[in-house]
């Protein structure tokens, strides 16, 4: 079989493995099956990406060519995102085993089945070339995510999951309305076909309404500021492994869908005729400033990092709002980099919860001496989110500032710098408690985390530095992707 024929299996393998996983007894087998299928998915994507860079790979399901059948279409953009998601899954599962044993002690077969469904949903959204198929996979991943969030064990977990469900369903239904309107106008759901047929009807009010519905629907999914209300609760109350996985993949996929629909389907000409760039510029900037400030106010470190995620979505929205090759490639690079740094940070915090039992900053006091490897990882990943040179965060911010200067937007440059300073405060708050405060008296000494938690965490921390120094993969692929989205290259 050729790489092309293997490509759909990066979605299908976890999807097929999920029901099997639900039937497996005990703790080891479901985890092992989940790990194998997610790793296989990552390996397939690693073979797919180099070919997709040469020319888009198209797989027709049931050998029905589009527009009749559904196709998977992988090019530089979604090959890149797909590889990122699969790799994050393959790093997070080994880390998650211990924390899942602690937090979801029973019926782990079902837990890993849901994890696989959420994973294959995200992969499906990324690879498909059909606008309605995106909706189906969006709901597969969302529904399993709601249930995963509700497994969090705290009193509020079902409540957070319910609020996420309401917002998520509204978002998906808004998206469905938008797709319905453009289907009525063009009679096709294939993205490439839509791109060909939409310009002829671009002047109509219906297309503009469809665009607005789709943007708001995806905006809810990606937690763009004012639509982010569900995110802090869902991240703070979900089980640790789920939080790490969601924080590093779910919003990235939503941003990919946004880029794909806005630039490939609706096209540059239509987008510039709508107030898209202005809205994203303003929301991005407000998001960066407000969410970073809220992050500083938080006492629960999981919530603190969740607000920081909202701020990072603001950076990506700001990067996209420049509607230039430099801007969009900065956004794509930041998606990759943010996945690395936020996963590492959440792993550190959740490791502290595992060892010390509380996510509060007061529990971090004195941990620098007691859990030096974990807290060192936190500081290094924190430096990355602040944007210190040699880390991936620096690469992101450098590209973003470069794009802003090219557009002559000095205001955006100032906002990015202020955002970094705010990140210094909220990361510094935790680091200061860990390294400079003495441990509270009377507390049992907390021991360093077991290797099962430390190794994946440090793999990500090292990746934060590796991709900060060797930017060939990320920056080059992202630039190719941005050129493709803006139609500068086929």
């Amino acid at each position, binding site marked *: 079989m050729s790489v092309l024929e293997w490509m759909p299996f990066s979605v299908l393998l976890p999807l097929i493995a999920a029901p099997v996983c639900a039937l497996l007894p005990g703790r080891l087998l479901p985890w092992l099956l989940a790990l194998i299928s997610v790793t296989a998915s990552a390996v397939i994507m690693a073979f797919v990406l180099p070919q997709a860079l040469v020319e888009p790979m198209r797989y027709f399901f049931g050998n029905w060519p589009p527009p009749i059948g559904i196709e998977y279409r992988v090019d530089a953009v979604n090959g890149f995102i797909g590889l990122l998601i699969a790799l994050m899954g393959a790093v997070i599962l080994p880390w998650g085993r211990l924390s899942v044993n602690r937090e979801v002690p029973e019926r782990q077969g079902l837990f890993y089945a849901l994890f696989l469904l959420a994973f294959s949903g995200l992969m499906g959204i990324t690879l498909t070339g059909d606008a309605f198929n995106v909706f189906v996979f969006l709901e597969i991943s969302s529904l399993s995510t709601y249930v995963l969030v509700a497994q969090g*064990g705290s009193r509020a977990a*079902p409540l957070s999951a319910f609020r996420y469900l309401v917002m998520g369903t*509204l978002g998906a239904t808004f998206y469905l309305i938008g797709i*319905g309107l453009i*289907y009525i106008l063009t009679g096709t759901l294939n993205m490439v076909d839509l791109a060909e047929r939409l310009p002829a009807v671009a002047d109509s009010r219906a297309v503009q309404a469809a665009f607005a519905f789709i943007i708001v629907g995806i905006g809810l999914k990606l937690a763009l500021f004012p639509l982010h209300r569900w995110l802090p609760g869902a991240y703070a109350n979900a089980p640790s492994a789920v939080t790490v996985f969601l924080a590093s993949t779910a919003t990235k996929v939503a941003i990919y869908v946004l880029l794909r629909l806005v630039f490939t389907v609706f096209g540059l000409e239509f987008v510039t005729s709508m107030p898209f760039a202005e809205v994203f510029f303003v929301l991005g900037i407000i998001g960066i400033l407000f969410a970073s400030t809220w992050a500083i106010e938080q006492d*629960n470190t999981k919530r603190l990092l969740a607000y920081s995620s909202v701020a990072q979505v603001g950076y990506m929205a700001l990067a996209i709002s420049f509607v230039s090759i430099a801007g969009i490639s900065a956004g794509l690079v930041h998606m990759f980099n943010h996945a690395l740094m936020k996963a590492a940070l959440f792993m550190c915090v959740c490791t502290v919860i595992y060892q010390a039992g509380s996510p*509060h900053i007061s529990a971090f006091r004195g941990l620098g001496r007691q859990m030096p490897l974990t807290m060192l990882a936190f500081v290094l990943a924190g430096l990355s989110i602040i944007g210190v040179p040699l880390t991936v965060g620096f690469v992101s911010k450098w590209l973003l500032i470069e794009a802003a200067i090219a557009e002559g937007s000095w205001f955006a440059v100032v906002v990015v710098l202020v955002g970094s300073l705010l990140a210094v405060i909220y990361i510094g708050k935790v680091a200061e408690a860990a390294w400079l405060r003495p441990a509270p008296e009377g507390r049992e000494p907390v021991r360093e985390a077991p290797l099962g938690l430390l190794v994946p965490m440090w793999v990500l921390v090292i990746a934060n530095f590796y991709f900060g120094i060797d930017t060939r993969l990320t920056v080059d692929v992202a630039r190719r992707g941005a050129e493709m989205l803006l139609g500068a290259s086929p």
Partner: protein
Amino acid sequence: MDWLGHLNYWVVIFLMMTGFYAVIARGNMIKIIIGLNIFQTSVFILFISAGKIIGASSPVLEEGVDLYSNPLPHVLILTAIVVGVATTAVGLALAVRVRENYGSIQDDQLTEDEDGEPSP
């Protein structure tokens, strides 16, 4: 303008706004789920309306018929209905869990536990 000819679209808009209002304005979780259902149903009608072609037969191959309705929206909506049912089921299950934990399903009166401690 042909007001009556667009009757189904008026119904869609009316249901959409009713459902959306219920989701935003109601605090009771069951009412929120009912609102979500009405909202989703309006979208189903929007899709199915688009499949109807006036004077066309049902899309089954038959001699002497050359105008068929479009079956694709129905297929899409079958999928969407399944999604809607699943969402309702998960939503109701979560509402049961919330009631077990808080003793109430008034969403607007509950606060997410700030400390995230395990429930007793």
